[in-house]
Structure formats: C-alpha cells, structure tokens
C-alpha cells in the first residue's frame, strides 16, 4: 500500500462527567473506544453513524484538537499523540477541518477576503504568495473573485461551503477532516459539493476523513468506511466490500432505514426500537445488544472484538 498519512492505534477518548451527588464515584463518557484506522495518501476514509456515536470526536482527536486518553495517533509517520504548544501549532498548517454549517465557520461581519488573509497571516505565509493562492483556489471552487469583498450573509449556503473548502486548502494541507460538510445543504447543492470534493481529491491527491450520517454519501465518495456505534467501530472495510455484504446487524439496520426512491424497498426494512443508549457507564456486553433483533445470551456477557472476516472486512459481532 502507498504511504500512510494518518494512522490511529486503539485510539480512546473519554470525557469526565460531573457527579450528580457529592462523594459519588466519578463517571466517564466513552466518546471513542479503541478505534484503529490508517488512511493512505489520497484516500478518503468515511465514518458513518448516528448522532452521539463519537464520529466527530474521532475526527477532532486525529487533528489533535482534543487530548487523547489512550492509544496513539501518528501523522506522516510521526507520533503526535502527546504533542503540545508550538509543535502542535506547526502541525495545524498541515491539517484542516471543514464543518457542517458554513455560516458558523465564517465571522458574519468579516469580509471573506479578510478571513482568508487572516488564515495565511497566522501561519506566516508571504502576502504575495497568499494573494495568488487565494485567487487560484477561488477558480478551483468555481467562484468569482468579487466573493472576497462580500460578507457571509450575502452568500448562499453552497457558495459559502465552497469558500470553507477553499480556505481549508489555502495552506496546502496534507490531511483534511470534513465533518458532515454536505448535511446542511439541499440535494442539488450537495451534489455540486460532492463533485467538487471528488475533483479536488483527484487534483491535489487530498487525504481526507469524511464524517457523515448518510450512508449513500459515504458510499459515493469514500474508499474505506467505518461504521461507529457508541464510540466503537462495529464494521470497517473497503467501500465496495462493505456495501456488497453488510455483516453487522447495526449496519444492516442503518442501511435499511434510509429512505430510497424505490417504493418497494420499505417491505425489507428493519426498524430499530428505542434510542442509542447513553455512552456513560456502558454495559459489559455488546453496546448494540439492547436494540439488536438477533441478540443472544453471549452478547450480554462479553464485548465482541473487531475481527477480520476475510478481505480486510472487520466486524465486531459474536454472531457473524
């Protein structure tokens, strides 16, 4: 395989939770629980799951926007698990993030151009070089130059998301985390942004972690996919492999819950009962046991390990 840009080994992130009563044993929220992944140069790694499954926290951990509780993260072969201060700041230049709501990623009163120049200044990019680069990028994302003189409220959501992508590319990063970048957009605009991301990936061989709750989007764009549930990866494989045989009951349910254009699809639907349980004080067994239609006694006793079922298709289930 080509060179690995980002690698995580058994990555764990826990948040302390305030105790309800004085003297109560402190509790922890398991946001990310033992996730391992590696993304080769030019690869797009998709993470899917419902809200609260830890997909955003995983992205933030890889960028070292969070301190890490356990396991390790390495970036371009260098261990960055415990970096801090100046060495962490120099890392930021190589790693960028794109968020869900483009209106919240720009200062509403700052002109777009100024927001771009600020990013260049913080990372000490020479001014002339920055100006040229900004104009090149605007062309890449199909926006006119006069966008630089406008403020965010004068732009549509799709245009602003293009600008957020352009700004993320400004410093020529090696790794981008895109956290639900198309979830707030209309389908026709979503299609434009997905096309743009595919073009940019091909052109700049971008390496990306793509976080989404939509299976269809991930399937369209990503090379590898991990399905998360309560901080754990329950299934992980190459995209083609994963979608050609969905093995974990949760992945199957998630896939069947998506409304499709085929009116006969509904008869095959598995409707999950109940909500995602709280990630605080997880039960000893499989985290999905309470909602799983195939739950067996051993599922309540031990947590299933993520095992290879052939062809690098990893599944965490006792019954598969």
């Amino acid at each position, binding site marked *: 395989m080509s060179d690995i840009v980002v690698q995580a080994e058994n990555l764990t992130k826990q948040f302390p939770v305030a105790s309800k009563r004085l003297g109560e044993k402190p509790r922890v929220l398991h946001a990310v629980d033992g996730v391992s992944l590696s993304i080769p140069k030019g690869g797009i790694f998709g993470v899917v799951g*419902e*809200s609260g499954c830890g997909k955003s926290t995983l992205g933030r951990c890889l960028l070292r926007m969070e301190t890490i509780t356990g396991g390790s993260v390495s970036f371009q072969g260098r261990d960055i698990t415990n970096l801090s201060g100046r060495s962490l700041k120099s890392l930021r230049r190589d790693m960028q993030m794109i968020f869900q709501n483009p209106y919240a990623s720009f200062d509403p009163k700052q002109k777009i151009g100024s927001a771009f120049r600020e990013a260049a200044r913080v990372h000490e990019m020479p001014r002339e070089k920055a100006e040229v680069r900004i104009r090149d990028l605007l062309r890449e994302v199909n926006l006119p130059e006069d966008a630089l003189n406008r403020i965010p409220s004068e732009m*549509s*959501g*799709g245009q602003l998301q293009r600008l957020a992508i352009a700004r993320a590319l400004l410093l020529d990063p090696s790794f981008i985390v895109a956290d639900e970048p198309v979830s707030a957009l*209309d*389908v*026709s*605009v*979503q*299609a*434009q942004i*997905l*096309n743009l991301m*595919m073009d940019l990936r091909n052109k700049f061989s971008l390496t990306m972690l793509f976080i989404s*709750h*939509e*299976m*269809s*989007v991930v*399937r*369209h*764009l990503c090379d590898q996919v991990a399905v998360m549930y309560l901080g754990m990866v329950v299934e992980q494989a190459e*995209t*083609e492999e994963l979608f050609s045989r969905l093995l974990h009951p949760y992945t199957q*349910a*998630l896939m069947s*819950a*998506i*409304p*499709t*254009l*085929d*009116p006969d*699809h*509904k008869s095959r*639907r598995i*409707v*999950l*009962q109940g*909500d*995602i349980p709280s990630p605080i004080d997880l039960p000893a067994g499989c985290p999905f046991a309470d909602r799983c239609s195939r739950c067996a006694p051993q599922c309540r006793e031990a947590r299933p390990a993520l095992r290879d079922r052939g062809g690098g298709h990893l599944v965490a289930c006792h019954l598969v």
Partner: protein
Amino acid sequence: MENLLEIRNLTVELMTTRGIVYALSGVDLAVRPGEIHGVVGESGCGKSMTAKSILRLHNPQRSRMKGSIRFEGRELLGLPDREIEKLRGSAVSMIFQDPMTSLNPLMTIGDQIADMYRFHARAGKKEALEKAQEMLEKVGIAPAAKRFRQYPFELSGGMQQRVMIAMAIACAPKLLIADEPTTALDVTIQAQILELLQQLSADMGMSILLITHNFGIVAETCQRVSVMYAGKVVETGETRDLLRRASHPYSRALIRSIPGCEERGTRLETIPGSPPALFEPPESCMFAPRCPFAEERCRKAYPTLFDCGGGHLAACFKPLGKEESTRV
C-alpha cells in the same frame, strides 16, 4: 372524490425591508381525505410558506394573500382570525422540524398535551390529563404514566417529536401538516417516526401534508406528491408515477442529484445556477434559466399545466417523454 383541502392559485406577497418578496405565486394543491401528500422542493421554494398559509401563521400585517384555500369545502382565506384559531390544533394541526423549540421547556409534557386539549375540546382538567396519557401511549411513549411527568429536556429528539405528534392528534384532526418532521433526527429514528405517522394516518383516516426535501421519504410514505420550485407547484401526481416518469425537467434533475444510484465515484448530476430571488412576480417559467431544454417560449410566458395522464400534471411546455426520464 371530494378533496379535503384544495388550494387554488394561492399567492403570498411578503413586505420586507428590501421590497416585496413573491413567496408564492399561484400554488395549486389538493389533498384527498386519508392520503399522505408529499410536498418536495429545495430551501426557499415555498413549501413551508404554503403550509403556514393554510393556518395563517405568518404575520398578517406584513403579508398579502390572494387566491383560495378551501378546507372541507369552506373558504379559509376571508375568515376572521378567531375562526382560524378554532381550526388550529383541532381540525388542522401542525408539527415542525425542531421539536425542542416547539415544546415549552418549563412544563411537563403531560401538562402541555392536557393544556392544549382543554383549550380545544373544552374538557375538564381530569379528562384532559387522562386524554394526554392515552395519547402518549398511542404514539408509543412507554410507560406513559412515568413519562407524563417528565420535562422535554429529559427526552431524546425522537421522543420529543412523538410528544409533538401526540399533541397534534389529540383532537383527532382531519389534516396534519408535518413540516420536515424528521429532518433533525437520525435515520433510524426517522424510520420510526415515519412509520408512526403512516400508522396514525391509516388508523384515524387522517390526511397528512408531509413537507420534506427528501425524495426518498416521499417515495416511501406518500401516495401523491407535489414538487415545488420558486413559489409554484411545477409537477404533481401519484408518487410511483412521478418517480417513474418525472416530466418536469426540475423534478427530474432533483431526483437525479441524489447519490446512491449511479456508479461509485462518478460525477453526480447537478442543476447549474441557483434558484431565482423572488423579488419580481414571475412572468415566464422560473426554471428556464437553469433548464437544459429551455426554448424561446419558456422565457416569454408561464407554461400551462400539461396533463401526462392519470392526474399527473406538469407545468412545462415540453414535458419530458418517458424515454428521457426513465429511472429506477
């Protein structure tokens, strides 16, 4: 069949600081008794505006409405506000996208449902509380006796939306307007809520006007659908029929931009340009500037409705033939 709700040539003009916005310019929509009717379109196309107009939920001082909205044969447009108020929550009720902002955070959910019922059904306190509990059971919130005393923040998003539905159906409405009821929810929860709505519609013989931007939801839950663009309904028909042969270029483009049907990694079809600003009343086809099939006449006049057969109508001079729009 007599329509439960019939909207004819509805126009809504909004007075804003930047001038008049022609939010709706001639909407025609009919909902039959007991059916789930979908309204799809992109943000700003007038889906929510149509829904709000039925219950007169926009500021009357800053808007102007013309046309006709008939509910059970009765014209709503000229009715005094008091009459409309009687209608809200009883014969016609509505649920919204974000349940957390629709519920009162300082009242228990049981009290909120009971309050609503006391107002509309003129019931006593005890009767209303019993009704509230019954409704919670009906929407699948168990155990109702315990949940009854909880506050909205103690419930998940899906549960909150169930509470909203319980409140909306307490007076057994004939029509439920659901404005993007599952957009803020996860797919697995969305599937639960859609199933609940379908079951309630069948059990109570209640019509639902389901507003959504997701064609997949329409395909699975609605018997008929209307596609809106720039303040007008551009195509309407049986869901199956419309999905099989979308005749308006906009509907077709919208359906084709959904990922998941073509080869992985291939480019998705997009619609060039962006929807028009609605500062001028439309005189020609509003989709013409973005339409690959537009001709001279499309830029001169608004197309009349073309009957594609079986109640399938499209507002287009050149509705697409079957071979051009085939899909699935």
